[in-house]
């Protein structure tokens, strides 16, 4: 547990991706099975425990600590797990050092992991969980304000549980045994390990590590492409001993026994207009680029004949539970690549609408009825047992059309091809999808996908095969109002910019903030913007500076964004999607920046789909 704890602790504070990889790879290389496997499971979000939940932690806290001190502390710290981890009354030291004042073992970082860790080789004699759980915990003074000399001088040093023991205990203990078990662990762990344990229980590690990154770290152990790990991942189970054996070249490549595995997706490169001259339109096919969520739908039969159906996100998370309505429609064997959309009366709804379904935590029948999930497919990776990825796209397309026709389910349809014979023709279609066959769905289209007709399905982002040719973004000239410091590498720069547009206020024309952008500029531009902010500061609010702005003073930023949404949380009533600094208009006087009306017009175009819904919701509530 200690080594795992030290890793989490370090990762939580490390902003750099490569450094995170280094820390994880180092941990995997120096930690034996099965500990490292359970750690991988924790970091990839695979672990979940039936009875170990946040309520348990709160209950323990109230039982073991002075409630006034507990709530004052929770209020101060703001996070339940962390509060409990920090203030859990330390069990009196039973080491030979006792007799002096019992200091908590908090942060004995120096040799953390080395001294007390009992690794897997010692697991022949792990203390059974029940014994740990029943370890008598002495009465402690309120709030851990403990200064009595240690009791129990002659007891042996407490056994610090390994991560494997913790996972085992959390998975197998009965609901009634669990509080004592967890309390017993909290008594013997140091404060960082307590934090890690409680985070494990609440399922919120929040250490800035995606499942993909953790798998990449494993792959790096053996110089294996991360996609290879991804490919076999869903057939594996924690603690992943086979996987580690394989990447360390001690064992064979584990077979993917999962009948419905995830396959890493093929990604595209952005297409710049100047690239077109180098490409021959005759070699390419085009589809609409839908403004939805990319998914992979996979079904396969288990040995017992039952059909396993899964929906994966682009990064390989199993998101089936969020889309029961779609899972039901998956009556095929194979793997499809497509876009999640919300369709109402055969019309594709805007991303705003889709977001309303994604934002809900629990999937109720009402939600499913109001926001029916739909899969618009554009590729097929496997059919039955047959892997189709090596086939050229035209061939896969033929197979895909066949399967969709056979399926005959209105929830799943084919993303149509956009016919074109020259780049000019495609450019025209991209400019006006409605006229080029998309009809009323045009509002949900954000450009074209351009794919080589002979391309195999290559995981990752291979060069020269697939391109995304996005619709031009919306642009608005806005005035810089506030700047905040960035994070990580950028923490010494004012790199987050809040900008506003003009509107008629009670006291005449005023700027109202409409968004925040923190990318889109080069490093040199950042330096120049940073200098501008420092030299034109009017007010400071902690890490935020308000700069000079007005009709004749201030800086105009040309901001690009993908879409707009109504928002009651923003003063201006609108929120932008993907805003970024497109150009810095050092030359433009702020008085000539855009007005809120310009945004209202953009909003009006895409809003028809949002409004009826809001009315419905109101109607239902009243």
């Amino acid at each position, binding site marked *: 547990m200690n080594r795992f704890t030290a890793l989490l602790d370090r990762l939580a504070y490390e902003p750099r991706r490569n450094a995170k990889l280094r820390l994880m790879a180092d941990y995997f290389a120096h930690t034996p099975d099965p500990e490292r496997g359970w750690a991988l499971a924790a970091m990839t979000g695979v672990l979940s425990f039936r009875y170990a939940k946040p309520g348990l932690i709160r209950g323990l806290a109230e039982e073991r600590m*002075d409630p006034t001190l507990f709530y004052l502390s929770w209020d*101060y710290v703001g996070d339940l797990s962390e509060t409990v981890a920090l203030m859990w009354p330390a069990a009196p030291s039973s080491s030979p050092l006792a007799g002096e004042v019992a200091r908590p073992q908090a942060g004995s970082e120096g040799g953390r992991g080395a001294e007390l860790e009992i690794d897997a080789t010692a697991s022949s004699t792990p203390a059974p969980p029940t014994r740990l759980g029943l370890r008598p915990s002495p009465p402690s003074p309120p709030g851990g304000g403990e200064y009595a000399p240690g009791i129990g001088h002659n007891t042996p040093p407490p056994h610090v549980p390994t991560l494997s023991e913790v996972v085992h205990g959390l998975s197998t203990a009965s609901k009634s045994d669990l509080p004592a078990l967890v309390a017993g662990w909290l008594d013997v762990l140091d404060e960082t390990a307590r934090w890690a344990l409680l985070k494990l229980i609440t399922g919120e590690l929040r250490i800035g590590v995606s499942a993909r990154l953790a798998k990449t770290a494993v792959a790096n152990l053996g110089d294996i492409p991360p996609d290879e790990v991804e490919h076999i991942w869903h057939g594996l189970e924690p603690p992943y001993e086979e996987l580690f054996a394989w990447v360390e070249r001690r064992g064979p490549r584990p077979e993917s026994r999962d009948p419905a595995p995830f396959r890493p997706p093929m990604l595209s490169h952005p297409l710049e207009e100047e690239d077109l001259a180098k490409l021959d339109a005759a070699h390419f096919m085009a589809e609409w680029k839908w403004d939805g969520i990319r998914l992979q739908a996979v079904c396969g039969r288990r040995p017992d004949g039952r059909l396993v159906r899964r929906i994966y996100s682009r990064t390989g998370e199993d998101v089936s539970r969020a889309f029961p309505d779609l899972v039901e429609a998956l009556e095929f064997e194979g793997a499809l690549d497509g876009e999640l959309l919300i369709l109402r009366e055969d019309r594709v709804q805007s991303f705003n609408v889709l977001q309303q379904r994604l934002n809900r935590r629990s999937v109720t029948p009402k939600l499913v009825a109001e926001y029916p999930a739909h899969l618009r497919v554009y590729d097929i990776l496997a059919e039955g047992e047959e892997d189709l990825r090596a086939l050229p796209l035209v061939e896969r397309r033929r197979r895909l059309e066949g399967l969709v026709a056979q399926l005959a389910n209105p929830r799943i349809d084919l993303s149509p091809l956009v016919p074109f014979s020259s780049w000019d023709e495609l450019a025209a279609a991209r400019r006006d999808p409605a006229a080029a066959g998309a009809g009323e769905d045009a509002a949900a289209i954000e450009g074209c996908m351009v794919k080589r007709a002979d391309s195999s399905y290559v995981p990752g982002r291979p060069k020269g095969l697939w391109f995304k040719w996005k619709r031009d973004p919306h642009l608005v000239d806005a005035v810089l109002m506030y700047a905040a410091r960035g994070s990580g590498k950028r923490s010494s720069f004012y790199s987050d910019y809040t900008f506003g547009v003009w509107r008629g206020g009670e006291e005449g024309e005023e700027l109202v903030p409409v968004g925040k952008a923190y990318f889109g500029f080069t490093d040199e531009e950042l330096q120049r913007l940073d200098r501008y902010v420092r030299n034109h500061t009017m007010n400071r609010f902690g890490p935020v500076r308000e700069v000079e702005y007005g009709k004749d003073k201030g800086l105009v930023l040309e901001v690009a964004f993908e879409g707009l949404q109504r928002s009651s949380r923003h003063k201006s009533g609108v929120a932008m999607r993907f805003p970024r600094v497109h150009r810095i208009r050092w030359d433009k006087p702020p008085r000539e920046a855009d007005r809120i009306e310009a945004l209202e017009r953009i909003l009006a175009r895409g809003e028809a789909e949002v409004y009826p819904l809001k009315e419905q919701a109101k109607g239902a509530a009243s």
Partner: protein
Amino acid sequence: MVCCIGRLTWSPATGRAPQDRATLTGSVITAAPSADADAYIPAMALTCTDILTQTPQGLCCPIGGFHIDPVRPVERALITHGHSDHARAGHGAVLATRETLAIMAERYGEGFAGSAEAARLGEERRIGEVTVRFVPAGHVLGSAQIVIEAGGCRIVVSGDYKREPDPTCLAFELVPCDVFITEATFGLPVFRHPEARSEVQKLLESVALFPERAHLVGVYALGKAQRVMALIREAGYDRPIYLHGALERLTELYKSEGVDLGETPKATGARKSELGGAIVLAPPSATQDLWSRRLPDPVTAFASGWMRVRARARQKGVELPLVISDHADWEDLCRTIAETGAGEVWVTHGQEDALVHWCRTQGLEARPLHMLGYGDEEEGDLGASSRPEHPPDAESRDRGEADPAEDSLEGA
């Protein structure tokens, strides 16, 4: 005589009369408190509130004619230690330890007070109606508790203190007393400082893990900077430790007081290549600012008791939090209160509510003084959740951001 505004001005929240406390501390209650402090001369015994009261200037001893760590200019001030929230310039006469006087002179110039007198540790002196003694507090170089006795009642004003050993200053000395006046900067049970040595070990391990990157450690200019350096030296690290200009003069002062800190060159004078793998100390505000850009791919560390709370550390963009504090943690606050045997505890500043609550659960009388004006230097600045980004003081903030003209401001 020094003005004390009226008699005791208790926080209305506590709502108890001073007499109750007097009974509890075992002092004999004399005449009913008079409205005129000057006219009231105790005949036999004194209550603690006759000896010490609270005024807008700070704690005041009317029968001794002085204030302790006053936040506004007064005629006669006793100063516990050199942090700028406790030691301010502009008093008529100042009594403090020789080291504290030196720190004040370094910060404010020789004319920081009308007159200054050095108090020798442990030596009793009569001031007005009271006897006063300075006793080591273990907080920073020269820090002292002030023990006041009169009429059989002993009050200890501890200033800021810690119990953990510190190679740069004398250890805290326990003085049994009737009334113990304590700070509560880390007065919540979530604050338990690990051993500072193990935190420094963490820093050195990181230096070994990232030998090409500079390690930039945010430290407060007085006390923390020098303690961290001393601990790094104790751990056997003998390469130069580079300093931000704002840390230089107090570091020189420590060295001249005999604290061995090894070689501490100026970071601004060093080449960027030289700083790869080096440890660099700077005031907290400079770690996130222009100044830090001179360093190769720095790992940002921060040495403070606040680093125990993750959100705090992340808010400050800290990658390597080092929980090293010059204040007592929760356990040491509780332990110290208990060990003094005091029946009554006054809590000056910090997280008063929790500590007062704890005292009451132990059967002790306790009052929060809610004193304003303290905690503005060093760790106090991070304490209030409402202003987590507030820099230690305007002075060091400006220093930190003044790049590239930083050098011109270092003397401040």
